[in-house]
């Protein structure tokens, strides 16, 4: 089945069939595709294989291995230190702060992008005039570079020229301009993460919308006949049936928020207030040139990302059957 588009008459947005992890059965063998020269598939996949092995698998293995070594340009030679790098990481208060900060980024990012994405998805669930245009507009933030988004939002958060200060002053909610970034750590993180939420929410909305469109209309008709209010319908039908999409939305937001770098880099520079774990990796590796600790930190971020994704998938994901 070709992937249907949102513009087709049926306006059915579906997550394409993912196949099975090992690939779909190749072919019905009846008649089937004939055999090919044995070397042909290897010729077709080898460029991909070379890229994946040389520039991803080998480097990843390197990260894993080297995180147990002291690799410091200012402290040669390279030597085995077992868990030394990890111990140093946990002893460093900047590092502990960056972990805590990342946890806050994740909490805010996952919650907000999922809630807002759900609201957008419910808005777009039924057809109406201008719906495809609205979807086209909605995905724009997802397509933009994080760096440029940081710069755009600087115009909103700015301490002496920003839109937020101006609007709040005009509404007499504050009597003088405030500094939103860089003073209060929690406020700083919230303000930075909101920029990333702006970027991530369109995908969350699409993922949830794709699930919502699989809900058969009869379910809603039955609810209407039984006299369920729109709010009850939303709570007891839409929300539970949207869970698979919600789960995927949460996972993508989680991965995005754990790895946040561009937005804080632009909005807050090298200031330590609100520094994320990935920023800390960058500072440790490319400013302090302590690659060993950088490796250990990358490894930890990777493991946490994978574990946290699995936890969400395990505890929230429920396959839905109609």
């Amino acid at each position, binding site marked *: 089945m070709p992937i249907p588009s949102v513009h087709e008459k049926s306006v059915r947005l579906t997550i394409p069939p993912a196949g099975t992890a090992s690939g779909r059965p190749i072919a019905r063998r009846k008649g089937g595709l004939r055999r090919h020269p*044995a070397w042909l598939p290897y010729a077709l996949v080898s460029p991909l294989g070379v890229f994946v092995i040389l520039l991803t698998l080998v480097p990843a293995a*390197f990260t894993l291995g080297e995180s147990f070594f002291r690799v410091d340009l200012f402290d040669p030679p390279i030597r085995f230190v077992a868990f030394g790098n990890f111990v140093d990481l946990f002893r460093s208060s900047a590092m502990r702060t960056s972990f805590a900060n990342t946890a806050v980024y994740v909490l805010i990012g996952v919650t907000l992008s999922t809630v807002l994405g759900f609201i957008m998805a419910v808005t777009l669930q039924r057809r109406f005039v201008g719906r495809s245009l609205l979807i086209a507009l909605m995905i724009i933030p997802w397509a933009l570079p994080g760096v440029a988004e940081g710069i755009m939002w600087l115009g909103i958060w700015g301490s002496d020229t920003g839109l937020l200060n101006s609007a709040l002053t005009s509404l007499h909610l504050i009597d003088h301009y405030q500094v939103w970034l860089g003073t209060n750590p929690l406020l700083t993180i919230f303000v930075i993460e909101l920029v990333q939420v702006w970027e991530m929410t369109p995908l969350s909305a*699409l*993922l949830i919308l794709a699930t919502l469109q699989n809900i058969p209309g009869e379910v809603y008709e039955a609810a209407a006949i039984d006299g369920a209010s*729109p709010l009850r319908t939303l709570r007891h039908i839409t929300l539970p049936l949207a869970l698979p999409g919600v789960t*995927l939305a949460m996972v993508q937001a989680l991965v995005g928020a754990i790895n946040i770098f561009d937005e804080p880099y632009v909005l807050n520079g090298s200031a330590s207030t609100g520094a994320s774990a990935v920023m800390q990796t960058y500072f440790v590796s490319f400013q302090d040139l302590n690659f060993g600790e950088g490796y250990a930190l990358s490894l930890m971020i990777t493991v946490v990302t994978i574990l946290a994704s699995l936890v969400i998938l395990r505890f929230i994901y429920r396959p839905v059957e109609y």
Partner: protein
Amino acid sequence: METRRSWARRAGVLFVLVWTIIPLYWAVNISLQTNVQGSAKPSNYLPPTPSLSNYIALLLGSGETAQAMRQGFVNSILECLCATLLTTVLATLAAYAFARMRFRGRTVLFYAVLATLALPAYTTLIPVYQLMSAVGLVNTYVGIILVYCSGFLPLATWILHNYMTALPISIEEACEADGATRMQVLWFVVLPLARPGIASTALITFLFGWGQFLFPLILSTDASTAPLTVVIAALQGRHSFPFTMMSAAGVVAVLLPALIALVANKYIVNGMLAGSVK
């Protein structure tokens, strides 16, 4: 009840519009004002005397900044186009083999490719930098393009593999029965049928490339290969840089991806959904 629902939808539509448009509008608004106008309290919600002077100074000037911006724009285009082309071609070939051929090691390799999708890109940041500097590819287009390709290939292969397995196989069988070779089948039958999937893959890859920041930041230590993202982030670090011109720089960097998203939204939406099912 019907009316209550339609009010809720109107509120939802209004929310999507306001949420999406305000940051975009604000950057454009600021970028069209002079520095004095932009510093007004409260802000000018419309540019009092809209002027493109920031853009002209930023892109057509003869200063160091304008040169860096022009170079950055050219670099971004060049790096993204090459990476997109290479990624799409290689992913198409590999995806076809995975989708329609049996060979030893197929499952292992396919799983290995999928597994890399679960790795955050930053896992490989430091070793990739060391590898690139060992082979002298720091500050070269080739280095950046290779790194982009390695980052985007697994996802592109995954999207195209899913697309191709979903194509009806009977047409391919019929062509083979008529004496076409496998490569002819790929070229004359599968490629035309898979065109929407290939378009989605290429567009998504281009957008990913355009947004890259951390990898080019460490792989281009001077302006010769730095893409637009790295150039404008460096401007932001300068204290004396006028923020109205900064906004203009932001708008320059988002113009192309925003247009692509708006015009090719059908392909982008499909690519986003296909790519997220990891």
